[in-house]
């Protein structure tokens, strides 16, 4: 199978600005000064107009440029609440293929919204180039300014700068790819029936979280290349599969060692959808393409799932910084300030004992890094000798670019912040009758709490580790998956249902075994081959 994997590296490699290449521009050490102070603040009515949005956007942009925020071009779109719900329903993307689950999403969003149980988000921002930001019609002018600063400069610069997004997503082609996906799925519905496509998508969605590459860098492809390769790929993949399942008799002497030696896949594989796309014996070419589409989209969202705290924190930090700077420069009136600060305060609220709010934690961490740079205490100098006293702008930039939640927390969570949040860690052991407090925010516990929190954001501990273990090539062609338990945590009961979906894709029986830390199989699941 190695040829196929090699083919995935065709395409644009990292350009001269990335990965050890020389940077043309030195990072900015501190904010550029304001050229001229405005004579009077920007008008501040509560209703927005297009001219006002443009005026505010200009000032926000200039302020962001003074901080050297590197962004994709911005495209602001004004939408209604209903359109916002439409966007919600298709995972926030402007186009997507059709599926009942998005209908379900829309119905429940609409219902909750109409009952007044939930407000809609003020904005949605799409990681694309140009970066599309939706502004809701209902927002006041102050909210629009907040949203522009948050989405168009915060999120946008994160999308462009963070290493995970650079590696895994291609902002310039995602919209094209979704259009392609939508048309392809619609076409399949027409040719093969809605039912067949729906079942296939259901099964793919069940495995979506296990359909991402975690370590390889995919090639970037344009829409045209994608199309051109489709045909090629279908034919080639089919040939590979035929090869794998060849039933021609072999010579007797080779048979003996083949049986002992050949194990397939040779090494366990963690990308279940990729494995199925390339190896499932009975899938038709169009089905393989649909699997691939779901896999690609899962991959596109993979960085977002790993950078929740960082991404939201960064955007929140920057809307706070930019708008405050504008106030200091004399652009914003007091009324505006109070209005957006109220929303800001709601966003970063952190109720005690509840789940950590990513906005609150992220915002506090960036602000704390800035504090460590500007006014380090002795403790900070001990914990962060390399950044204490350094210029904050490049330090923050470096933090945004080169980490994900797990490593970001592991690197930058300071004792000061742990005290502020009063963080503590609890161990819940099935075998014990009581919870145990393993560490709190004190000298003995800082290190432990930080590690525990960092682990909490590690996707590989949040999601069960399930890999393709073996395929019974000579017998019933059944597929065996293996779940490696993390801290002896068992799988959720839905596993049986998910396995049925795996069996539908694979076409033959599917088994799964759950292995604990000692290497003993503690539980097995079996799903028979689906009826053909």
């Amino acid at each position, binding site marked *: 199978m190695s040829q196929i994997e090699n083919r995935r590296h065709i395409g644009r490699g990292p350009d001269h600005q990335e990965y050890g290449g020389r940077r043309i521009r030195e990072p900015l050490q501190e904010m550029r000064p304001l050229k001229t102070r405005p004579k009077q603040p920007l008008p501040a009515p509560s209703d927005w107009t297009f001219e006002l949005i443009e005026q505010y956007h200009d000032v926000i942009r200039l302020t962001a440029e003074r901080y050297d925020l590197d962004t994709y071009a911005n495209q602001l779109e004004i939408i209604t609440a209903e*359109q916002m719900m439409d966007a919600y329903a298709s995972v926030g993307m402007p186009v997507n293929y059709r599926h009942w689950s998005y*209908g379900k999403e829309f119905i429940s969003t609409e219902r909750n919204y109409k009952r007044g149980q939930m407000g809609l988000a003020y904005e949605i921002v799409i990681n694309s180039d140009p970066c599309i930001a939706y502004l809701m019609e209902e927002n006041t002018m102050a909210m629009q300014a907040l949203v522009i600063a948050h989405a168009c400069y915060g999120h946008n610069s994160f999308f462009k700068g963070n290493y995970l997004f650079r590696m895994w997503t291609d902002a310039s082609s995602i919209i094209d790819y979704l259009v392609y996906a939508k048309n392809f799925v619609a076409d399949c519905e027409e040719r093969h029936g809605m039912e067949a496509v729906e079942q296939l998508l259901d099964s793919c969605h069940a495995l979506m979280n296990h359909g991402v590459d975690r370590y390889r860098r995919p090639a970037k492809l344009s829409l045209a290349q994608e199309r051109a390769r489709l045909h090629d790929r279908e034919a080639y993949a089919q040939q590979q599969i035929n090869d794998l399942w060849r039933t021609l008799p072999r010579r007797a002497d080779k048979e003996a060692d083949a049986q002992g030696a050949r194990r397939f896949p040779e090494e366990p594989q963690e990308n279940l959808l990729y494995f199925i796309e390339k190896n499932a014996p009975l899938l038709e070419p169009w089905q393989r393409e649909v699997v691939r589409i779901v896999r690609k989209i899962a991959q596109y969202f993979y960085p977002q799932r790993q950078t929740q705290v960082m991404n939201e924190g960064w955007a929140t930090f920057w809307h706070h910084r930019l708008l405050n700077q504008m106030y200091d420069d004399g652009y914003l009136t007091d009324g505006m300030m109070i209005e957006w600060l109220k929303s800001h305060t709601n966003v970063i609220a952190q109720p005690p004992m509840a*789940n950590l709010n990513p906005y609150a934690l992220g915002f506090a961490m960036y602000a704390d890094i800035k504090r460590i740079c500007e006014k380090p205490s002795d403790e900070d100098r001990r914990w962060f000798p390399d950044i204490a006293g350094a210029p904050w702008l490049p330090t923050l930039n470096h933090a945004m670019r080169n980490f994900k939640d797990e490593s970001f927390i592991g690197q930058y969570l300071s004792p000061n912040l742990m005290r502020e949040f009063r963080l503590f860690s609890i161990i819940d*052991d099935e075998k014990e009758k009581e919870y145990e407090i393993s560490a709190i925010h004190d000298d003995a516990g800082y290190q432990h709490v930080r590690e525990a929190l960092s682990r909490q954001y590690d996707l590989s501990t949040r999601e069960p580790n399930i890999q393709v273990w073996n395929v019974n090539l000579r017998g019933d062609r059944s597929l065996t998956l293996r779940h490696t338990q993390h801290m002896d945590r*068992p799988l959720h009961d839905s596993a049986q249902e998910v396995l049925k979906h795996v069996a539908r894709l694979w076409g033959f029986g599917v088994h799964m075994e759950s292995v604990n830390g000692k290497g003993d199989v503690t539980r097995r699941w079996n799903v028979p081959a689906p009826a053909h």
Partner: protein
Amino acid sequence: MSLQQIIDRRLAGKNKSIGNRERFLRRHKEQVREAVRRAVDGRGIRDMEKGEDVHIPKRDLSEPVFGHGEGGVREVVRPGNTEHVRGDRIAKPPGGGGQGQGGGQASDSGEGDDDFVFHLSKEEFMQVFFDDLALPNLQRTQLADTPEWKSHRAGFTSDGTPTNLHVVRSMRGALGRRIALSASARRELRECETRLALLKHEGEELPLVRSAIAETEARIQALRQRIRNIPFLDPIDLRFRSRVRVPVPTSRAVMFCLMDVSGSMDEARKDLAKRFFILLYLFLTRHYEKIEVVFIRHHTQAQEVDEQNFFHATETGGTVVSSALVLMEEIIRARYSPSEWNIYGAQASDGDNWHHDSGRCRELLTDKLLPLCRYFAYVQVAEAEQNLWEEYSKLVGEVPHFAMRKAIENSEIYPVFRDLFRKEGAKS
């Protein structure tokens, strides 16, 4: 400026996810159907055309993914510690696992175990309702137009009855005519009068002048006479309000629902009958602005009841169908004059009747009811052909606006219905 742009998408159309909604409904067709079925049972036949809430158990909507379950060892970090120190032990809440402490799954089980509820729009509801009746997507089959006339004003005519005389118009015409006819005479009269005044000014002594004066005065006299002779009002001046008769397709209809509620009519049969009545009602609503529905139920005696009692009350005992027909006639005579109302009759029964009564039913229909009705349809919701069926069969063909069919299953109702009304539709 080229770097940034603001696009107003608000007019770009909503309902982008309508396709997703369709797929969602299609997937949960069974639950939706069930909800519609229940709604049909519960609703009055007059308010069938509205939406309905559909409940779907959450578990039917779940999209399973691999996830961690309860158990094993977990370590969770939480904010807001005010009382604990390292090494503290806290009792777990009873009932095993550590709810409320869950890190990963908290978000997707946040809403509790209520049913997933959504609203079916009116159109979607009717769609499902008709789907259930094996209706090929059409719900507006035409019934024959009712020949009812209404008179309308349509300008003025020169001919009509005195009651329609339009006085102002007529007088205006007369005035015009008088002015027109007298114009030349009055012009000449004015000239003559001027001439007369001139002549008199010159002096009356001269004989030539005197004769001229006399001549002019005679002429003036003649002209005055002529003007006076023009009639003040002439028959051609008269204008009448014109009224034309236009056919009006809609007006009032009354629908009689007759149903046997004797012991042999079980819930399923009543449901079948109800669907039949609903369909008839829906067809009539396409056609008449105002529809009244009269419910008559009968066993050995007939009784006019409200809808609730009609469909849901249970009775036992024997069956005398004619009692209902008699009552229907009485009600027509009392309240629904056939000249003002389009009368439709729909009768549903399982065919059971006291055997001496069936002949009388036929006679009642032919002699009394059918002449009053625009249409009378009989549906038998049971297979067995008994004497009522036989008696009624004699009417078929003889009377054009009587029809009868059998329906055993829900899906048969619509074809039966279409059958029943085809004749009528074809005429128009």
